[in-house]
């Protein structure tokens, strides 16, 4: 493991809070990204990401150094996001909006004739459609897809984070990708 992180963790365990600030600084973007893709709402993602770091701090003594530190953080953030998804009503996302899209929903955009995939990706609408498609995935598929694509994590890392056999991770990625294809493949 990275020496820098090792030293920071040691300092945190001794009660040095400022050492934890370095950890937050290093991983905040990735953790926020994970929460955002899982929850689909910037405000809630910010909240969940902060809670994830606070939990990590409180539970730093349970961190097992044989695991990658980032994997441990991802595990905390993933579990927290899943908890939050479960507390919600399942239909809450049907008309979910991504900030900055002026109230366009997936349904209104589906009606639009879309541009070529290359330009389309630059458009906000497509960004939103991708996020909508991710949010439509059941949580077990959503989790693996998000982990795979936010940080190009390997199958082994995802299996470590979720504490699942690699075969299960593969199957879930495949099913998740098929489900996404149904929403995005025709664009």
């Amino acid at each position, binding site marked *: 493991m990275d020496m820098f992180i090792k030293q920071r963790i040691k300092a945190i365990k001794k009660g040095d*809070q400022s050492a934890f600030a370095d950890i937050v600084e290093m991983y905040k973007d990735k953790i926020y990204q994970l929460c955002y893709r899982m929850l689909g709402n910037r405000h809630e993602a*910010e909240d969940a990401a902060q809670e994830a770091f606070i939990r990590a701090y409180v539970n730093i003594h349970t961190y097992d150094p044989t695991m990658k530190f980032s994997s441990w953080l991802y595990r905390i953030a993933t579990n927290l996001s899943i908890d939050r998804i479960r507390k919600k009503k399942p239909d809450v996302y049907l008309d979910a909006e991504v900030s900055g899209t002026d109230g366009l929903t997936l349904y209104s955009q589906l009606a639009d004739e879309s541009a070529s995939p290359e330009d389309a990706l630059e458009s906000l609408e497509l960004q939103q459609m991708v996020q909508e498609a991710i949010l439509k995935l059941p949580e077990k598929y959503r989790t693996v897809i998000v982990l795979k694509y936010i940080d190009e994590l390997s199958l082994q890392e995802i299996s470590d984070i979720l504490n699942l056999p690699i075969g299960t991770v593969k199957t879930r990625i495949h099913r998740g990708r098929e489900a996404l294809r149904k929403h995005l493949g025709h664009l």
Partner: protein
Amino acid sequence: MPCSEKIVQWMHNYLDGDIQKEEEQQLRSHIQQCEACREHFYELKKTAAFVENVSHFIPSDDFVKKVMYNLPREKRRVRWKRWFTHHPFLTAASLFILLSTSSLWAVWQEDNEFSFSKQEHLIVQNHTVIVPEGKVVEGDIVVRNGNIKIEGEVHGNVTVINGHKYLASAGEVTGQIEEVNEVFDWIWYNVKRVGYNIAKTLTK
């Protein structure tokens, strides 16, 4: 529809970078001659590219600050310990003065009145002292038996005794910000205060 489960499985394995050379060759040659599978594979690749390239959002600018302010306070004992060991004389002297002049516990118990340092710009609502947005308070603020909400700036230390602090995202405190809510905190606060005064007297 693609013609077999096996072919679809290979497509996914390919996308995961988890395919045998031989299978990859078979997949390629099949796709060249089968339009349905070619189409399916194209859609999967496109889907993967979309998800991979979806733009990344970043958290708020004060994300780290907010996490740090919300860390639990129990670790502060470490700080007390450090202070006590670094300032043994001041700790002993302060404790002596505190214990001989008053019963600390009684003071803690009886002192229930809401009070706060009179500084410019402060607004009070239901036992909450507010530092309004856009205002700068020059100097320290101590709030007893009430809360403080900081929306503006404080150039100094903020101490809340028996209450809570709320720091709005626009709020800023240049000095220390502290909550004193337990008798142990209270002793610590007084030891530090008395210790500081002794130190000042000694260095005069």
